[in-house]
């Protein structure tokens, strides 16, 4: 009987979740049709690269006591998570931008949109995995972690957005991230 109660509660939760997600999707599509997709948050790629630099971690490990290192490492990991979350959110916005642009009659724009959607989806997938690994590392600060793939993917995504932008308006340049420090 207890398992039956669990199943009934699970069914009610599933129903509530499905209705909520469906309503959210419906409202979002309505907003997008009205021309409001979302907001892009600018990201300082170089600062993120510094955060995920394993050499810096190694330097800190040698200079700090284990307790201090754990505290600093956790702070850096939380900052890293905030960056990855921003990557993921920006990717989500670009998925919607690309999907709406897919309806364009221009084959070049449609192709660029498809490329943008693919890159944004891959970034969002990688960001999800990266976030899971960051939260894992928060529990075990001595574990090694590399988020370079996320950075690389973000730069590629930036390239796709630029391509779509140029095709939609050749006069305007587009970037999603700050330039590398000179």
């Amino acid at each position, binding site marked *: *009987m207890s*398992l*039956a109660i669990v*199943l*009934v509660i*699970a*069914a*009610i939760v*599933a*129903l509530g*979740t*499905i*209705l909520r*997600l*469906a309503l*959210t*999707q419906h409202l979002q*599509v309505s907003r*997008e*049709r009205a*021309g*409001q*997709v*979302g*907001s*892009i*948050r*600018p990201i*300082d790629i170089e600062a993120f690269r510094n955060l995920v630099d394993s050499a810096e971690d190694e330097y800190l490990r040698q200079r700090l006591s284990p307790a201090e290192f754990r505290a600093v490492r956790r702070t850096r990991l939380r900052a890293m998570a905030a960056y990855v979350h921003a990557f993921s959110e920006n990717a*989500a*916005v670009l*998925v*919607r*931008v690309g*999907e*709406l*642009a*897919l*309806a*364009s009659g221009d084959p070049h724009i449609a192709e660029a949109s*498809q490329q943008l*959607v*693919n*890159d944004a*989806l*891959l970034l*969002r*997938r990688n960001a*999800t995995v990266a976030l899971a690994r960051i939260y894992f590392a928060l529990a075990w600060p001595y574990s090694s972690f590399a988020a370079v793939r996320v950075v690389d993917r973000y730069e590629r995504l930036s390239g796709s*957005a630029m391509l779509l*932008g140029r095709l*939609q*308006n050749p006069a*305007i*340049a*587009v*970037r*999603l991230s*700050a*330039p590398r420090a000179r």
Partner: protein
Amino acid sequence: MLQPHSLLWHYLWLGPNVLQAGLAIILWRRGLHKSFPVFLAYLAFGAIEQSILYTMDVARLGSYDAFWQAFFAGAVIEGAIKFGVIGELFFHLLRSRPAIAKLGSRLISGVGAAVLLLAVVAAAYTPVVHRPLISISRAYVLLQSSYVIDCGLALFLFLFAAHFKLIWNLRAFGIALGLGIVWSEHMATWTLNANGVWVDKNYLLDFLNMATYHVCVLIWFYFLLTPEKPVPEKVATTSAVSLPENNLDIWNRELERLLQQ
């Protein structure tokens, strides 16, 4: 009013099935069977199956046991078709998104295995409530297991689409919404039935099942017969933060300007 064989009971059993048979014919005439062939089969089979069961119940055709055996056989075939419908919806969701198609396939396989295991465990722990007529208990447990799997997979579809911010095709969205509602509700009611909760008033759960199914058929009518609105060619975004005066600010403004065109 809420009694078996009342006018409302007859309407709620027959009405949605007549409507879904009509919907299947309209979809066929409009050529939508090419996009959703398995869902069309689901509609057609459901209408035929329920009409047979209704006739057997009302006209007292065959024995009580024969009714439940027919019910069981129908549930087995419908269960197989429902898996096909889930696959069809997933195909519509992923066909233009090759970047996550492989991940999606792996995830849905994993989720499918997990909910199958849950369904098997739940079935193993479900008591035999109707000992004199074992076919009733057997049918109840089958439906409980079937809806645990269906509900889990439908929930996964919505969570997957929401996580990746995928835009559903309007018709696929309508089908998924209707199925998600009816499968979640059926999971709860068939679990209660299978475990003998309110065994003396389980006809109230039948009313709930039939009413929910009726609502879902109307949802399918709305989403499948409403023409899709054209998507605006140009969409806008706005920046969430104000940036200091540097190159980044300029690029971001340019991005905004581009996206607002």
